[in-house]
């Protein structure tokens, strides 16, 4: 009889930290003590705090262990499972063994991620036990397609892929679209740098996506669906394939679902490494076996999509919300969130923050709560500088805007966007010009080249930014950046080009002094841009080990072994950073010039 259940996170991040080795070690230790019958190990999807992996949760009492190594397995089994004494050194925070006592979890509201980390994503029975496919049954047997659309519309759900278009309205358009057959597509081509919530849902709760798609198909009158997943997510693809086979076997997909005359099936399509395929018309081109290039809209996919037929295309997280709307009703869903942004949103916290990982919060929570209460703020010794939200289409918001509520409209009003929900926290060691340049380099790389504003605009902006970070910028460059950026917003063909300038425009808006410092003073205040820093030896930290002198290619690092401090002669320095990398005592510092 099972006395203890161990939920072991087997998401990509925890797998990469060695969760499978932990599982083997646990099984071995359990076998040694004859506990295999009493303790069950369940491999689940992502639990959220990826940086602390491998993580595991022990029930019935709910003890949360972090950074578990295979060599800890014996102690967990002997101390905890045999003697009932949790292992204190493996807890996240001493004295707070249960997730709800840990601030990271306590502030979250899990809807989309409710099954991630609690069920085995490879077992359909566990999904069904968590009321899986109940919403589909309710829709197909008790509601007309029109009623389903109306319910989703009333819930106020908006697309979670970035633009925030009202989901119910989109469904209504496809339902009204003229053409046969109609298609339902799930956009699982998650590519925004810093976003990994769709991966977590695909890997941790694949059935919730299939169920959402099936409900959508019933509502719009489609019998055929596609999930377009990026090839970079092999585990997600594998879990989806497993889920598909199981759902077909039990009749949740296929002909005559719930003994009705509604039929629906799903195929998986795999990308091949093109960021722009996350744009809906590019994605459709890619499914059709062509270059993944966007085309002008209208016509929107709702009227002319895959093979020219009416096509519903929603993002992973959007579909994962659908079953909750039907299960608990539109009102219950809309009770969470703000007036125009209903429900929850999953954010991926990364960068310079204590607790990185995935969190799901009610819409309208402030950035401060997100970054400090849940994320734990920036690590000690550094100061918060900005939060980059919305990836390459988003913007950087400064500390003065930390009390802005996180919802679609407030964010775009301040020059950022919700986007897919990637949040990168930057501390005072980050250079905002360099950050903007980084995103521009990304979008100029990923621009498909079809339309001129995006193809040429990103290149021109990148060239200007290259000049500025090299210390060769001029004041005119700032005006030029704004002009090109505004032109790209208006004239680009798709969302990639229309938003590519946002990282630059938002940093220009909130951190103009940093741009000026690069241009006027030839100085990078954060000490990041290689051409604009000065290397200095901290006299009290230098031990005279001679490492910097030996590493320096130009003789700028000078001194005598054993006779600290050394010094670096700025006139000879080519700013290669070799001394900085070579110093074992962190005595070489980068300072603004």
């Amino acid at each position, binding site marked *: 009889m099972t006395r203890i259940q161990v939920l072991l996170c087997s998401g990509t991040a925890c797998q990469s930290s060695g969760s499978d080795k932990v599982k083997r070690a646990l099984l071995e230790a359990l076998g040694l003590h004859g506990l295999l019958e009493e303790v069950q190990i369940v491999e689940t999807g992502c639990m959220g705090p990826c940086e602390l992996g491998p993580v595991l949760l022990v029930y019935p009492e709910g003890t949360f262990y972090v950074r578990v190594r295979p060599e800890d397995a014996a102690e967990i089994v002997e101390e905890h499972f045999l003697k009932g004494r949790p292992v204190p050194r493996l807890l996240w925070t001493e004295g707070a063994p249960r997730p709800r006592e840990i601030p990271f979890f306590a502030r979250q509201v899990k809807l989309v991620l409710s099954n991630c980390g609690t069920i085995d994503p490879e077992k359909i029975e566990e999904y069904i036990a968590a009321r899986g496919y109940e919403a589909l049954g309710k829709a197909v047997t008790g509601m007309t397609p029109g009623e389903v659309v109306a319910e989703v519309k009333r819930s106020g759900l908006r697309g979670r892929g970035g633009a925030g278009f009202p989901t119910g309205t989109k469904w209504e358009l496809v339902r009204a679209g003229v053409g046969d057959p109609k298609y339902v597509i799930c956009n699982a081509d998650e590519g925004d740098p810093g976003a990994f919530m769709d*991966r977590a849902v695909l890997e941790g709760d694949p059935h919730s996506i299939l169920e959402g798609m099936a409900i959508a198909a019933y509502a719009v009158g489609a019998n055929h669906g596609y999930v377009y997943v990026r090839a970079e997510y092999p585990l997600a693809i594998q879990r989806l394939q497993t889920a598909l086979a199981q759902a077909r076997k039990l009749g949740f997909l296929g002909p005559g679902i719930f003994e009705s005359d509604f039929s629906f099936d799903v195929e998986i*399509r795999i990308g091949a490494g093109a960021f722009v395929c996350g744009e809906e018309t590019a994605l459709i081109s890619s499914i059709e076996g062509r270059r993944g290039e966007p085309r002008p809209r209208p016509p929107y996919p709702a009227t002319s999509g895959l093979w020219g037929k009416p096509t519903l295309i929603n993002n992973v997280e959007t579909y994962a919300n659908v079953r909750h709307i039907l299960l608990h009703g539109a009102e219950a869903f809309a009770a969470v969130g703000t007036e125009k942004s209903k429900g929850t949103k999953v954010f991926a916290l990364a960068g310079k923050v204590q607790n990185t990982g995935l969190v799901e919060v009610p819409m309208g929570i402030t950035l401060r709560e997100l970054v400090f209460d849940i994320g734990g703020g920036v690590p000690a010794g550094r100061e918060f500088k900005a939060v980059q939200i919305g990836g390459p289409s988003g913007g950087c918001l400064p500390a003065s805007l930390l009390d802005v509520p996180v919802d679609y409209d407030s964010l775009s009003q301040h020059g950022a966007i919700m986007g897919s929900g990637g949040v990168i926290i930057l501390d005072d060691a980050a250079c905002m010009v360099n950050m903007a340049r980084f995103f521009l380099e990304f979008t100029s790389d990923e621009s498909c080249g079809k339309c001129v504003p995006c193809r040429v605009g990103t290149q021109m902006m990148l060239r200007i930014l290259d000049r500025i970070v090299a210390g060769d910028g001029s004041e005119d460059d700032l005006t030029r950046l704004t002009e090109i950026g505004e032109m790209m917003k208006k004239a680009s063909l798709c969302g990639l080009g229309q938003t590519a300038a946002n990282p630059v425009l938002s940093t220009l808006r909130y951190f103009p002094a940093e741009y000026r410092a690069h241009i006027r003073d030839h100085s990078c205040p954060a000490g990041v841009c290689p051409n604009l820093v000065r290397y200095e030896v901290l006299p009290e930290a230098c031990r005279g080990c001679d490492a910097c002198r030996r590493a320096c290619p130009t003789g700028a690092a000078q001194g005598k072994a054993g006779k600290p401090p050394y010094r670096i002669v700025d006139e000879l320095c080519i700013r290669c950073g070799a001394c900085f990398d070579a110093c074992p005592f962190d005595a070489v510092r980068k300072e603004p010039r």
Partner: protein
Amino acid sequence: MTKDAIAARHPRSPEALLSLLHDLQKANPENFLMPDDLALAASHAGLPLAAVRDAVTFYSMFSLRPRGRHIIRLCESPNCHLAGAWSALDELRGSLGVDVGETTSDGAFTLELTSCLGACGVAPVMMVDDEVVGNLNPERVRNTLARYREGR
């Protein structure tokens, strides 16, 4: 499996093109698409050869030149950058003796850069074939390369 048998597992439609190309590329030990593969994909999917070439050259995961048995893709996105991906890149360059885009002389590895791999919680990250390797530092890079060299 013969190339024809691989093709037979895919529907004869343009829709199958990308999946078919992935499978054909995987079937070559040198991880690239040969001219014959493109011709086969074209006839199977019912597309002109030019259309297949057009698609192949668009997607970064397809290669028309031979590559190593293992493809290493190091993430160069901001989170990995902030977490120090460049020290991992230095280690990869040094250990492999190749630059980005090149293949080791023994044909074991090709080094590539990629945009976000969606595993930012354990940044810096690289993928070796289908395996995600996170929390990279020079030592972990060396150990991973050794593991693949030994064929594990």
